[in-house]
């Protein structure tokens, strides 16, 4: 049953050291504010799950909070590499991070299986792919009807999932629209789910019947954080801050510059700061 609480409390009550956690958002609706709050609270030994780790996982890896990453694309989308992740994988700085690497198809199916309460996902994939040789969690099953061998991966079942969404209604139902990505599955696959939203509205009675709405009883906590997806975007509210993605490539290139940036923009900042960051990016309603 969704409670409306401040982000600081929502993160503190729902994340623990050692948790398997997904901060999801497929380019769109990335829950940056929730990650920054987790960084401020200084969690340790997290297992991070995400299809496209991007900036926020680069930041957590760089801050030494991460024990393991389960992912399918560890780049800065459209820009290049994730330099903090590289530094960890190549040089063990600030610590070594165990990696479990999949394809997008595998991760998407694994979240879907988690949402569906299954222990595994079955799909046609990984044929001839090198990952099948280096990831022991890629197995297979044989179709009892055709004899075809299909790929099998374990379902993703995070202890907690964090997502950002457009809005909640007063009961705590949550609406996601635009590129909906893997968010519904990430929430339904998790034991606990925390959602940051741009705003709260009375109800969704005017919404089209087939939109992606998560009922309030699938959500543990909701925090209202306008701009909370920056530098990602929120369809209908503000556009993607592509310049920040390009800038990150510079920031993350150097350990000292990275630490200084984190101190200034994360450690010393608050959830309320996100609203100002998207002010110039807002779209006409």
């Amino acid at each position, binding site marked *: 049953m969704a409670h409306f609480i401040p982000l600081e409390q929502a993160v503190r009550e729902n994340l623990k050291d050692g948790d398997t956690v997904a901060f999801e958002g*497929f*380019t*769109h609706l990335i829950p940056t504010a929730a990650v920054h709050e987790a960084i401020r609270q200084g969690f340790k030994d997290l297992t991070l799950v995400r*299809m*496209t780790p991007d900036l926020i996982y680069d930041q957590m890896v760089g801050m030494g909070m991460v024990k393991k990453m389960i*992912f*399918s*694309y*560890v*780049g800065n*989308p*459209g*820009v*290049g*590499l*994730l330099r903090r*992740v*590289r530094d960890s*994988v*190549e040089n063990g700085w600030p610590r070594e991070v165990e990696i479990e*690497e999949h*394809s*997008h*198809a595998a991760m*998407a*199916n694994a*979240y*879907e299986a988690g949402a569906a309460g299954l222990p595994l996902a079955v*799909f*046609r*994939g*990984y*044929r*001839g*792919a*090198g*990952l099948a040789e*280096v990831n022991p969690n890629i197995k297979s099953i044989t179709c009892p009807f055709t004899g*075809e*061998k299909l790929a099998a991966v374990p379902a993703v079942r995070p202890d907690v999932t964090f997502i950002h969404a457009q809005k909640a209604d007063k009961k705590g139902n949550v609406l996601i629209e*635009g*590129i*909906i*990505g*893997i968010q*519904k*599955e990430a929430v339904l696959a998790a034991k606990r789910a925390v959602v940051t939203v741009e705003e709260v509205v009375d109800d969704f009675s005017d919404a089209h019947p087939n939109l*992606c709405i998560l009922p309030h009883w699938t959500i543990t906590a909701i925090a209202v954080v306008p701009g909370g997806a920056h530098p990602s*975007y929120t*369809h209908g509210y503000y*556009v*993607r*801050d*592509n*310049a*920040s*993605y*390009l800038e990150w490539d510079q920031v993350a290139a150097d350990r000292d510059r990275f630490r200084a940036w984190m101190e200034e923009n994360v450690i010393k900042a608050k959830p309320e700061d996100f609203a100002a960051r998207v002010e*110039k990016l807002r779209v006409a309603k």
Partner: protein
Amino acid sequence: MSDFTPNEMMTIAASRALTSSDVCFVGIGAPSAACNVARLTHAPDITLIYESGTIGTAPDVLPLSIGDGELCDTALTTVSVPEMFRYWLQGGRITIGFLGAAQLDKYGNINTTVIGDYHKPKTRLPGGGGAPEIATSSQEVYITMAQSKRGMVEKIDFYTSFGHGDGGDHRKRLGIETKGPTLLITDLAIWKPDPETKEFTVVSMHPGVTREMVQETCGWQVKFADNVEETPPPTELELKTLRDLKARTDAAHKGK
């Protein structure tokens, strides 16, 4: 139209391979530019699909990521990511999977995962994303990349996505029923796999390109077709379309 860069020629040559009846799964970078030039010139009804779930998009500027808002704003419809990979890619509905590559071998196998050993990499690259299954579930795969000895190598460090493996019927032996890479467009030439060996063979060179230039920027011994054609240079419309698109894109990405 006389003055154009090799990269422009590459994008435009790639765009020409696409038709209005194609359903194209678009990778970011050069593939995205080629697909949108095709859409804005000779293939207005092409269906462009990005793995973020956007089906039938028509962006005015090139997306920086595969999930920029404009892809959704201009799409016929936007579905969830699991649906994208299950119904649309795995379902066999993609006619062309359009990929780039960090490392490529002569059989169209692609590496975008690591340089060096997987467990102790010299360079950790972004990894495959959608590519492993784009390479096997799309009806055909087109590849586009600028030539270099570092990029086009005899042996790739990691099989991120499978092309023709060791050549011949290697795909079939692994139970893969799709055609795999059928076209490679570089900044210098157009390549197609040999029908038997599946080794990429130069079938057309771009204006002004010599066989030596192709070999000097390629890490394997290049095969040329009996009859190597010259790629027609970009038309005025093609070049203007591409340059306008790039200009709009640059302006948009640099922010305000």
